[in-house]
């Protein structure tokens, strides 16, 4: 019954206790912080999983914070879709933390508790964004997640610091625009609760205020999500940050923002809105096409593995944006599937690259010669992630792309379908270039052997095995989670 709030409270309390313990106990406290952080995330993940099963069997839950009924108080709304996202966020954060829990020795002395505190706060922020049913509360959660992300991403070197400041400037403008959009909705409806706003706006005739509010709010979310013209912060910030930080934020931030866009479209805004502004929708889909192609082209030019992944991510953002605005349920299904699939495969790829960086100290593509012989397990997981990213059938990436392409064809948008397929072909080129190097070339003399450290490899293998599993479960996910969410909407 208290599960929705407990999912968020565990990482929050974990962060407080981590900081308090590190500064209160003379020597022992600092050593115990890692188990506390892992424990907090594990409890949160357990709550999320239990919540998902509950929601699937007994239906959505609305948790009233402070016991106040919805339009007056803040509520957490957990329906199948947000329960699934809660599981994705908490499990992703947990796996990534376990995989990188060996790195603290490399971190500046005394900063491990602060790092873990910020890591937990970022996770809690993302969990809250997913769970909340209040548009202003969502803004505050965005800021909790964002502030801790800025700090986490600034850790490694001067390039990272500068990139992080740029991210801060862009991200704050994005969040402020979102807040502005919320203000417009408040002027029009007088409420902040998502369901309440939806019912009020549906009863009112469509006004300029609602339309502008919608546009400004979406603009803010696109900035936070790194849609093409506003994408510059993403490769800069994620490619230069420490592996542990980018492994958390690259899979989560853009996907959670995509979820918010989907949530706004299917829950908050009246159904006649998108129909009433078809010009806007088609403009957004074109923008998505540009984002996909630009991301693919820029990815080809990269010499650094992580930068390349970041630009592929920019293209993936285009997939999700375009699918959400195509305006039919097949495409929306594809978008939601792709949020899930992309979170899983980005996590796999960033985790694998992070382990490569931690072992060899480099993420340049030319340093990957013979990696299949030196780090076989990591490379196998990398291959799984890559195949999923390309869209090879048993992996989950295939199914989401299938739905996106068929949605595009259903809407008659040939260009979107075409750019989707084009970017998949580019992914083939990009990844097979790497496989060729790693498989056929001889490793350099100084190459490190992949010692079987279960702590790193177990989470990686787990998430890599999950990729085909999610793919095979696609039918169930659509039936149990996506169709109820889209019922009566599209």
């Amino acid at each position, binding site marked *: 019954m208290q599960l929705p709030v407990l999912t968020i409270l565990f990482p929050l309390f974990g962060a407080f206790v981590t900081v308090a313990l590190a500064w209160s106990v003379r020597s022992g406290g600092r050593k115990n912080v890692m188990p506390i952080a892992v424990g907090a995330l594990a409890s949160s993940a357990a709550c999320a999983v239990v919540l998902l099963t509950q929601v699937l069997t007994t239906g959505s839950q609305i948790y009233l914070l402070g016991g106040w009924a919805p339009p007056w108080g803040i509520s957490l709304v957990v329906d199948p879709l947000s329960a699934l996202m809660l599981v994705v966020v908490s499990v992703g954060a947990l796996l990534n933390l376990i995989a990188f829990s060996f790195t603290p020795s490399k971190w500046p002395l005394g900063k491990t508790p602060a790092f873990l505190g910020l890591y937990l706060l970022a996770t809690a922020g993302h969990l809250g964004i997913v769970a909340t049913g209040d548009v*202003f509360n969502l803004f*505050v959660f965005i800021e909790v997640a964002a502030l801790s992300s800025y700090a986490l991403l600034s850790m490694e070197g001067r390039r990272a610091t500068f990139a992080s400041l740029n991210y801060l400037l862009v991200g*704050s403008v994005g969040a402020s625009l979102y807040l502005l959009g919320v203000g417009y909705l408040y002027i029009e409806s007088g409420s902040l609760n998502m369901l309440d706003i939806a019912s009020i706006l549906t009863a009112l005739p469509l006004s300029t205020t609602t339309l502008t509010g919608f546009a400004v709010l979406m603009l803010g979310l696109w900035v936070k999500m790194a849609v093409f013209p506003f994408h510059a912060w993403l490769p800069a910030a994620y490619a230069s940050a420490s592996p542990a930080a980018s492994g958390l934020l690259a899979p989560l931030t853009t996907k959670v923002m995509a979820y918010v866009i989907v949530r706004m479209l299917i829950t908050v805004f009246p159904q006649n809105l998108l129909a009433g502004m078809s010009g806007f929708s088609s403009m957004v889909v074109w923008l998505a096409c540009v984002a996909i192609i630009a991301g693919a082209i820029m990815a080809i030019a990269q010499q650094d593995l992580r930068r390349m992944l970041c630009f592929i991510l920019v293209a993936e953002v285009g997939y999700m944006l375009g699918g959400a605005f195509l305006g039919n349920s097949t495409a929306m299904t594809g978008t939601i599937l792709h949020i899930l699939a992309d979170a899983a495969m980005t996590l796999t790829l960033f985790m694998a690259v992070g382990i490569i960086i931690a072992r060899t100290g480099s993420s340049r593509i030319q340093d990957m010669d013979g990696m299949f012989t030196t780090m076989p397990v990591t490379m196998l997981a990398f291959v799984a992630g890559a195949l999923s990213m390309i869209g090879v059938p048993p992996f989950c990436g295939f199914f989401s792309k299938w739905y996106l392409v068929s949605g595009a064809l259903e809407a008659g948008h040939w260009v979107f379908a075409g750019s989707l397929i084009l970017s998949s072909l580019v992914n083939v080129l990009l990844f097979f270039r790497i496989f060729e190097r790693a498989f056929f070339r001889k490793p350099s003399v100084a190459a490190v052997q992949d010692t079987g450290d279960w702590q790193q490899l177990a989470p990686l293998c787990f998430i890599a095995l999950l990729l085909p599993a999610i793919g095979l479960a696609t039918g169930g996910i659509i039936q149990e989670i996506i169709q109820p969410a889209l019922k009566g909407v599209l």
Partner: protein
Amino acid sequence: MHSLGEVFASHFNYIAYVAIMMVGLYAMAAKSNLIKKLIGLGIFQTSIMLLYVSIGAKKGATIPILAKGATTISPADYINPLPHVLMLTAIVVSVATLGVALALVQKIHKHFNSIEEDEILKELRR
């Protein structure tokens, strides 16, 4: 159709917020100095706070603190408290963002010995 002056008189708060917001946006986009960019960000965020607070205004109403011994409470007598609550939170958020931003700028200055964006970019390309 209302006259332009009438529209201006009844909507001056919205026009003021847009003007301030654009000042902030311009400062963020056009200035190269990182501190000036942060000042621009501050102006940008403040304009949104102004918009919210001005939504709460009611003609002839007083601050949302109930008078002592008030027996009948009519919502028309007190201005809307909700925007104030929201903006209190937003102000705190913007203060926190500014603190983190200044910390980042200070670290950038330590690394690059400059807070001019173009100089830093030149240095990074080298």
